[in-house]
């Protein structure tokens, strides 16, 4: 029992962490939180099920095409909902534009795919068990993503350029860094990470349009609590959240687990709006 709580909790936590990283990657490139983070996560499951179950593509091909779709969605997000409102960041129009786009994607899925949860294919030809693939696949995806990002940021110039833009956009532009190209690339990357979250957890969470808002919220909690921009914070927070949720689920029931998470989320933010790892807000006047 304990083992199943832990493995399910960690798997769920890995998905939240991946969505949190999706938020972070977009935020670092543009100072924008996008409501599409959870939505692409949901689409990862739906598109995977569509390609493999409905169209009968091989798993590997379906996987690659799903990631490609994620990248495409990321690029569209950047072009349609972020770039037009970047000039007036202080008006927070991005909250509305990304919300609108996320709703469009979600509704489209509900109408054209299904409003009911649909099965997701088994990805590997392995039998079930305690170490079932539906649990370790999300964790593997999370680990690979973190390792990949670390490699990107530490060992490639493109990665350093991402960091440079995140730290000081103005100085980066003055140096002649291709700010717009890097931003588009970040959004494509974020889209891929988001769909990876949904794809790897497809068997556990099913291909369901309603996963979007849930992932949006539970993926944002670790980002907000861990301090935005911190991927390690997102992973630690995500895993803790997943474990907590499963434990509470088992002990007191799902509703109270949700209420508890929500209450903790609000109280922590009210006490420390910048999160545990974040910096104090900048000068206002």
């Amino acid at each position, binding site marked *: 029992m304990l083992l199943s709580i832990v493995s399910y909790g960690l798997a769920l936590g890995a998905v939240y962490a991946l969505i949190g990283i999706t938020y972070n990657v977009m935020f670092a490139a543009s100072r924008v939180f996008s409501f599409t983070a959870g939505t692409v996560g949901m689409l990862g499951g739906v598109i995977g099920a569509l390609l493999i179950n409905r169209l009968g593509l091989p798993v590997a091909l379906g996987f690659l095409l799903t990631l490609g779709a994620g990248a495409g969605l990321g690029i569209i997000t950047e072009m349609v909902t972020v770039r037009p409102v970047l000039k007036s960041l202080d008006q927070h129009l991005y909250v509305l534009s990304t919300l609108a786009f996320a709703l469009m994607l979600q509704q489209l899925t509900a109408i054209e795919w299904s409003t009911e949860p649909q099965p997701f294919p088994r990805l590997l030809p392995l039998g079930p068990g305690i170490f079932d693939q539906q649990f370790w696949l999300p964790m593997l995806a999370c680990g690979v993503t973190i390792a990949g990002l670390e490699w990107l940021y530490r060992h490639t*110039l493109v990665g*350093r350029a991402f960091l440079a833009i995140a*730290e000081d956009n*103005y*100085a980066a532009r*003055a*140096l*002649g860094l291709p700010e717009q190209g890097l931003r588009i690339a970040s959004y494509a990357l974020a889209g891929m990470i988001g769909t990876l979250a949904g794809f790897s957890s497809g068997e556990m969470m099913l291909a369901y349009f309603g996963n979007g808002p849930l992932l949006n919220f539970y993926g944002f909690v670790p980002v907000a609590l861990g301090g935005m921009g911190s991927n390690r914070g997102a992973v630690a927070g995500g895993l803790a959240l997943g474990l907590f949720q499963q434990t509470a689920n088992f002990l007191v029931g799902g509703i109270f687990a949700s209420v508890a998470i929500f209450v903790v989320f609000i109280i922590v933010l009210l006490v420390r709006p910048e999160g545990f790892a974040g910096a104090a807000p900048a000068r206002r006047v």
Partner: protein
Amino acid sequence: MPTSAPEPLLEIRGLAAGYDKIGVLHGIDLTVGSAEIVALLGPNGAGKTTLLRAISGLMPKSGHVNFAGRDLSRASPRDMVRAGLVHVVEGHRVFTQQTVFDNLLLAGYGMAHRARDRQVEEALAFFPEIAAKRNDRAVTLSGGQQQMLAVAQGLVRQPRLLLLDEPSAGLSPVLVDRVLAAVARLKDAGTAVLLVEQLIEKALAIADRVYALVRGTIVLEAPGNAPDLPRRLEEAYFGQHSQR
């Protein structure tokens, strides 16, 4: 203009720029010749930083910018950098979370690897002090060292024209001399410099020519060694009536 080359490297005509509805610059005409050091002086709030930003494409503007024989009036900062005009912005804004070496590599983003690595070394050679800290993160540098790093970043592409915005700000007098000496050496290497500087005497010591910018317009242009320059500048800054 006796001191400028017949074909100026940078020629600006009728440039105007501002923030929102506030007009900051009005009808600026300005030239910089090849391998010429031009100082841009003026009281604070005159629009010097704005002028550099407008030239390098960091903010929108109207008017004409001709650089190295090309019309770059609507160019982005990236286009400008590629054309050989690099802007070292105010306030030594280096990337604090990355190493000195990575900061310089970023300045050469998109260049061929070998040329980039060679020129990073050459830029470091200008500032032995930070060359010794090449693998330290920039956050560990002092303000003066960060400023040197910012100038070194400007050198990596071996630009034909370097825009330097207050490289002396926040530096001790000794460091100011070091940075400005490096600027003077650039001229020998064939790089032109447009320098915004609050320390007038220091600026005059290395400048071939000066412009004074007051309230968004150029009010004075003179050779750097003109004898009555300090008095003329004081008048330009404070108005004609010296006593009330």
